[in-house]
Every structure is written in structure tokens, then in C-alpha cells.
């Protein structure tokens, strides 16, 4: 083992952390750190906190839907808003609640927790590199999150405390383009756009880094098809992100220009999205020639791939964890890789399915419908393969596994409900009803977040050298799972009943009145689910101090990261790792020859063992 010389350009470190490095201060070690692990943990902690912010906003939304125009707790009494109304919120405040719930959850939780936290932490460890290709860029990618968070924070109050950004996370013009169009369309919207752009900058830095690292810095023997599916998913996500994000950034700038170019001391004003002669709030009629649909095309050209950016890494991580917890190789490793690639590829040509009712040419609708239908195929293949992985496994029923199994079970619901909306005529009815809300929460919460919950616990020992309490995690899982289904499953029925989304008071409409009790049930479920997250946070924080000490490989997993110390020191590995096999050789004859049911990717073939078929696929 000691005779192996690394052939790739990674700088080799010994066990001694300070070797070859100047002394590190607290600031450079834990704050402006360029160590991918610290950055990953920074991302993780930040996003978990943001998860609570987004969750609080969601509960406020649910409160209004269950007790419309009732006195809203905390908002009124504690924040002193809506005093003469006795804490009864205003409709524009409601638009802010759902807009910021989505914005926070998407841009400050899901995207950064997957790529930022786990991407950063896992990529070098799983491919056997000592750090990212561009450590400083990596640090910047985290620190660009904070200006973004600051911009989002300012946007809450920029137009007054009761009217934060309220044009939906999709921010369709003209609502988002004309400052007079809504209370929230003024300064709040501008700050929101700045925040969005900065999140984009952060993501882009990450993407470039991940791609470079994965292509160039793999350990010897770590061929592309020996990479864990986590790495594949991060790789594909990075590519998606790198190609799609510029379009959103461009669109964002166009919108900012539309909004702000009149402030410039030049005669250059843009009207990308503004048609002529529109009057809102008795402002002067617009001078235009633009087209609001352009925004929808540009926005969804990014945001549809973004949906997969929010899902693929979780898919990869869950594949890893399922294999480990079932002590069984991933069923169909290559089909898994190909289907992820197919999702990414098709992801670029399906954006139009968000616009089936927009007045886009019907011929386009037909094309987008077919491509959207086809994107269900790789998703289906993945589901079948996950079930195949669990099948005949030696299942460890811990919270990691339960969360992963929930991922599979709930992703099926999210995937299947998508088929309704891929079919244009049916979507005409379901577009912008609660059916779509149910759909994307099953995908983003049911799938991605459950995957994240599993991943947090799975890699926690590697991050902090201690294990999280499994019993607490099981309680967290059970409460979250029940709360989640209680909250989101009825949304399918609300959608079928024709309840449009983003309504502050749906019960104004006679045909929706009878849905109030169901909404109250959903709100109670959501409150249970929301408070269950304190179990996760508490467990996360307390395990850091009190958790059971973990060794290098507490789960008996195969990946390269498990051959490193827990937590890994600066430079990650005490010995430069060499990869000898695929990542999922659980229960293989080779492992059995060593008397165990796993075999680290770094373990050389046991003496006397004849490698006859270490590639089953």
C-alpha cells in the first residue's frame, strides 16, 4: 500500500495537519476557510437554519389558509405588525409569505444544501482528492450566499414591513416588472432580484469547481464508472447548473434593467418584458414593445433544469445510502447513471410544460408534452432500480434507511402526479391549482428533503466524528413523514377540486368553501411537521457534544471517504487513496473472503482472492 505513488496532481498530505501549511487562525480555519469540509459544514448549518426560516413562513401560509383573516400568531403580537387589525394580515403580506417561503426554500435551502453542503463535503472525499480544484473559489461560493441572504433579508422590509417580495418565486412580469403593479413590486422586488443573482453567482462558482474537481482530481483507479452515484449526480448537476444558470442570470439582469434603467443618466431604457400602453395603479402608460412571455421562456429554461438540480444529488446520495443500508450493490449502476444523464439532457427541452396555459403556440405545447412525458421514463427506471436495490437486501432499519425508503415511496407519488400535468389538456385544468403544489412538494420535500435528512445522519460521523442519536432521528422521521403526508397529500384533492394556488382566501369562492376543514387538518399536520424539525436541529446540535464517538467507518460502507479519519484532517486522507473497485461491492464474494459484508474501495484484493467478476454489470 505504501508503495503506491499518486499519479494525479493532488498534493499529498500526511496525517499531521499543519504539515506544509502556515499556522491557521480561527478565522481562516473556521470562518473564511478554504477547506472543502468546513465550507460544506458551513453550507449545511446555514441551510438548516434557513430551512427553519422557510418553514416558519410556510406555517404562516398554512395558518392563513386554515384560519383565514384570523389573528396570526407571532406576526401580530410579537412583531407588532397589523396592530389596529388585531394581527389580521393583509393580502399582500400573504403574497410575501408564499413568495419568500418558496424563495428561501429553493434558493437558500434545497439548492445549497445539496450542491453546497453535500457536494462540497463529499466530492473530494469520495473521489479521493485532498480538496477542491479551486479552494478559494469554493470559499467565495459560500460567502456569496451571505450577500444573497442579506438581499433577501432587505427585500422583506424594503417596501415596508408588511409588503416584502410578493410576486411568486417565478416573478412573472408585468407584476414583477412595473414598480406600481403591486405593493411588493417596488424596492422589495429589486432586492429580491439582486439576491437571486447572487445565489446564482454562488452556485456557478460551485458548479465550475465540482466539474473540474471531478474530472481532474480523482484518485488513481477511480474511473468514471467506479464513482459513487453521489458523485455522478453532483457531476451531472454541476453541468446542468453551468449551462442553465447563465440564462436565469441574463433574465434577471434584463428584469433589473427594465426596472431600473430609467434611473440611468442615459437615454437607454429597456422594455424587454413590457408591452406598450399598460397602465397599473394609474401610473403613466408604459412605453413598450416587449413581451412578458419572454421572461417565462427564459425563467423556465433555467428553472426547469433547476428542478433536477434540486433532485439529482439527492437521488445519488440515496442510492449510496440504500446500498449501504441494504448491504447490497446498487441495482443497475449504469442504468442509474444513464438515466440521470437522460434526465439532465431531457431537462433542457421540457421547460415549456410550465407554460401550457400561457398562450404559447399550441404546436410547441405538443412537443413539450411529448418530451415531458419522456422525462418520466428515466425517473421510473431509477425507482425500479431502487426497489431492486432494497429487494433481497439485508436491511438495517435505522433512520437513514427509513428516510431513504421514504424518499423512494414519496418520489413515486411526486413522479406520478407529474404525469397529469405533462398531459396538456389535463394540465389545462390542473395548472396553477393545488395539484401542482402537491406535486412539487412531494418531489422537493418528499424526495429531496427526506434524502437530505438521511444524508445528514449518514455523513454526520464523517463530519464531526460522532454519531447522531438514531432514536431521535426515527421520531423525527415518523413525525415528519406523517406530517408531510397529512399536509401535502390532501393538496392533490384540493387541486382536483379546483382550488387555485396563491389565494389568500379561497373560501371566498362558493365552490371551495367546503374545503376549509381539510385545510385545517393540513395546517395541523404542517405544525406537527414543523415542530418535528426541532428534533433534527436539537439532535444535530447536541450530538456534536454528546453523540457516540464514531470510528472511521461506522456504517460499514465502501466509499473512499470511509477510509479517512472521522473527521478527516486537513488534506482528508492519511494515505493517498487508491481505488480498486466500484463503490457498491457489499456482500460480494471478495468481501466475504475478508469475513465482512463490505469492502472499501481502497482495500486491495485480499490475498489469494481471484478477481473473477468484480464487475457484475
Amino acid at each position, binding site marked *: 500500500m505504501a508503495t503506491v505513488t499518486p499519479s494525479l496532481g493532488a498534493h499529498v498530505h500526511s496525517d499531521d495537519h499543519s504539515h506544509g501549511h502556515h499556522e491557521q487562525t480561527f478565522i481562516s480555519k473556521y470562518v473564511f476557510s478554504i477547506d472543502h469540509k468546513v465550507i460544506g459544514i458551513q453550507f449545511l448549518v446555514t441551510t438548516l437554519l434557513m430551512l427553519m426560516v422557510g418553514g416558519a413562513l410556510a406555517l404562516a401560509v398554512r395558518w392563513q389558509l386554515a384560519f383565514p383573516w384570523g389573528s396570526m400568531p407571532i406576526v401580530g403580537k410579537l412583531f407588532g405588525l397589523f396592530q389596529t387589525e388585531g394581527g389580521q394580515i393583509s393580502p399582500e403580506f400573504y403574497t410575501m409569505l408564499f413568495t419568500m417561503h418558496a424563495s428561501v426554500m429553493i434558493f437558500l435551502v434545497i439548492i445549497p444544501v445539496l450542491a453546497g453542503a453535500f457536494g462540497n463535503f463529499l466530492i473530494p472525499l469520495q473521489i479521493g482528492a485532498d480538496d477542491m480544484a479551486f479552494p478559494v473559489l469554493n470559499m467565495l461560493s459560500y460567502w456569496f450566499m451571505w450577500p444573497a441572504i442579506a438581499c433577501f433579508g432587505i427585500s422583506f422590509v424594503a417596501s415596508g414591513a408588511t409588503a416584502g417580495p410578493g410576486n411568486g418565486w417565478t416573478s412573472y412580469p408585468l407584476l414583477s416588472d412595473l414598480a406600481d*403593479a403591486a405593493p411588493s413590486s417596488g424596492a422589495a422586488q429589486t432586492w429580491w432580484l439582486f439576491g437571486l443573482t447572487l445565489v446564482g453567482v454562488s452556485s456557478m462558482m460551485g458548479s465550475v469547481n465540482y466539474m473540474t474537481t471531478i474530472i481532474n482530481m480523482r484518485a488513481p483507479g477511480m474511473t468514471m464508472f467506479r464513482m459513487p452515484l453521489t458523485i455522478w449526480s453532483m457531476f451531472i448537476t454541476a453541468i446542468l447548473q453551468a449551462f442553465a444558470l447563465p440564462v436565469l442570470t441574463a433574465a434577471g439582469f434584463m428584469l433589473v434593467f427594465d426596472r431600473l434603467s430609467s434611473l440611468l443618466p442615459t437615454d437607454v431604457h429597456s422594455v424587454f418584458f413590457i408591452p406598450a400602453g399598460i397602465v397599473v395603479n394609474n401610473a403613466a402608460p408604459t412605453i413598450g414593445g416587449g413581451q412578458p412571455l419572454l421572461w417565462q421562456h427564459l425563467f423556465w429554461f433555467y428553472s426547469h433544469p433547476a428542478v433536477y438540480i434540486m433532485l439529482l444529488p439527492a437521488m445519488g446520495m440515496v442510492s449510496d445510502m440504500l446500498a449501504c443500508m441494504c448491504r447490497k450493490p446498487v441495482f443497475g449502476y449504469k442504468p442509474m447513471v444513464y438515466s440521470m444523464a437522460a434526465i439532465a439532457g431531457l431537462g433542457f427541452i421540457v421547460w415549456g410544460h410550465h407554460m401550457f396555459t400561457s398562450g404559447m403556440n399550441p404546436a410547441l405545447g405538443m412537443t413539450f408534452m411529448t418530451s415531458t412525458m419522456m422525462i418520466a421514463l428515466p425517473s421510473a427506471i431509477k425507482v425500479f432500480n431502487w426497489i431492486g436495490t432494497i429487494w433481497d437486501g439485508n436491511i438495517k432499519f435505522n433512520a437513514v434507511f427509513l428516510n431513504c425508503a421514504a424518499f423512494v415511496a414519496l418520489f*413515486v407519488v411526486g413522479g406520478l402526479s407529474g404525469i397529469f400535468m405533462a398531459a396538456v389538456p389535463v394540465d389545462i385544468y390542473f395548472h396553477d391549482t393545488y395539484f401542482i403544489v402537491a406535486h412539487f412538494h412531494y418531489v422537493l420535500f418528499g424526495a429531496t428533503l427526506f434524502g437530505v435528512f438521511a444524508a445528514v445522519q449518514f455523513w454526520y460521523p464523517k463530519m464531526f466524528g460522532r454519531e447522531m442519536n438514531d432514536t431521535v432521528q426515527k421520531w423525527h422521521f415518523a413525525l415528519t413523514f406523517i406530517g408531510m403526508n397529512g399536509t401535502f397529500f390532501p393538496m392533490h384533492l384540493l387541486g382536483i377540486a379546483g382550488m387555485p394556488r396563491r389565494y389568500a382566501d379561497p373560501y371566498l369562492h362558493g365552490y371551495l368553501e367546503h374545503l376549509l376543514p381539510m385545510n385545517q387538518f393540513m395546517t395541523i399536520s404542517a405544525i406537527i411537521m414543523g415542530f418535528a424539525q426541532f428534533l433534527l436541529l436539537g439532535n444535530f446540535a447536541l450530538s456534536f457534544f454528546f453523540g457516540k464517538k464514531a470510528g472511521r467507518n461506522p456504517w460499514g460502507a465502501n466509499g473512499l471517504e470511509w477510509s479517512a479519519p472521522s473527521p478527516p484532517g486537513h488534506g482528508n486522507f492519511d494515505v493517498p487513496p487508491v481505488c480498486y473497485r466500484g463503490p457498491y461491492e457489499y456482500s*460480494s464474494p471478495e468481501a466475504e473472503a475478508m469475513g465482512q459484508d463490505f469492502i472499501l474501495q481502497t482495500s486491495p484484493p485480499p490475498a489469494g482472492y481471484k478477481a473473477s467478476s468484480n464487475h457484475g454489470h
Partner: protein
Amino acid sequence: MKKFWALFFIFWPIVALYVCLVAPSRNWWFPSAPMSSVGHQIDGLFYLILIIVAVTFVGTQVGLGYALWKGATKKSGEKAVFSHGSHKLEIMWTIVPSFVLVFISLTQLEVLANIRVLARFPDEARKTPVAEVTARQFEWRIRYPKPGTQLSTEPQEGDLYFVNELHVPVSQPVMVHLRTQDVQHAFFAPKLRVKQDAVPGLVIPIWFEIEKAGEYELVCAELCGWGHYKMKARIIAESEESYLKYLAALETDQNEDGVADEAASASDEE
């Protein structure tokens, strides 16, 4: 405990299915049967997809549940089966779903064309649009052409105006022009299964044929600002005769000069 968790995952799809099965009887289903000709087609497609999806849902959840149960009842010490997958299975579960998906999308095309392609709108509807519906924050403004004239895209003298109430003749295809005065809105009539965004700068024709006289909700389905939920209107489908009567009454009201027939105006005031 292992069995508990396996049952946990077997149990919840049963609850979900049960909820879906009782939903129609609990009124957690469509607000009503489809009341327009395309509505029937849309619902037909919905139920087709629902059946396919339900079968898939049950299939995958049974598969998952069974796999979990097998894992939970495994004797201690028993090893996992070492397998990297199966080409046959992969091919099978690639081909079958792709046929199903292509089948689903092919079934949609005809209906989609009927709903959206202007050239395939019923002729009588396309030639005489009955009204222009203009969405604005936060109401629906209706403009009918002066009785006996053709609807023009720009307001004409003698056009009739109303708000939040669109009258159309029943049992015949009608076309309305949809536009917006300010931001984007969407014309959504849940019981008719009609939805179309109103996009600033565009005039978008939509057609529907209401099968039964009555009142149908019209709401907004695209976020249009703080009062999005307030855009509550109705479509009233009535016989040709009473439709024309309505227009005549609207014309009289619109020319009200306050001194006309005393009795009529008195009853009008109340």
C-alpha cells in the same frame, strides 16, 4: 421494530388510496361533472391517466412494501443477495413505461388541438366572438359588441359593458377574446375545465360550449397581485332568447338617463 417499519410503509399507501377512493363521496373531487364539451374530453383523459397512475402507484408501493417486509423478516445472519442488476429487467422496465408514456401523450394530441388551435375552433364560434373579457386588478371587465354588430378588438361606440358577469348562450360553441389591462391573469372556469392566461399585449381567443344553462364560476388562476383571490366572477349560460333579452336590458340600462319610465326605474333602483 423492523416489522413495524415495514408495515409503516405498507400502511400509508393504503391510507392514501382509501382517501382517494372516498374523496368523491366526501365532495373532495371535481367541483362538478364537466359542463362543457371539451370538459368531457379532459375528464376522460384525466381518468385514463388516473387508472394508469393508480396501477403504477399500487405496483411500486407493493413492490417496495414487499421488499421491506422481506428484509424485515430476514433471519439474523442471513446475507444480502449479491447482485448488480439484471439486463432483462432493465430492458423490460424501460420499454414498457416508454410505450405507456408515448401512448398517453398520443391520446392527448387530438383534444389539445381542439382546445387550442384556432383553425380547429368550431366555425360558428370563430366567426362571431360574443364578448371581450378584460382582466384587470382585480375584476373581470366584460365588453359585448353593440347588439347586431361584430366584436371589434378596440372599443366601439355603443359597446355594452359589465363587470364580473359574462352571459353566453347555452348549448352552442362560443368564443370570447381574452385580454388584460395590466398584469398577467388567467381565465379559469373550473366547472367548464377552461383555463387560459391573459397575457399583456395579446388578445387570446378561447372557446367553450356550455351544455347546461346555469351559473359557472370564473376565477383568476395566475398570480396578479394582492387581490388575486378577489377576482370572483361568474359565467351565466342561458337560452339564446334570454341571452338576447339580457343584452337588450343591458343596452337599456347603459343608456339610462334618469328620467325614463318612472315605474321601470323605480323597480330598477331596488
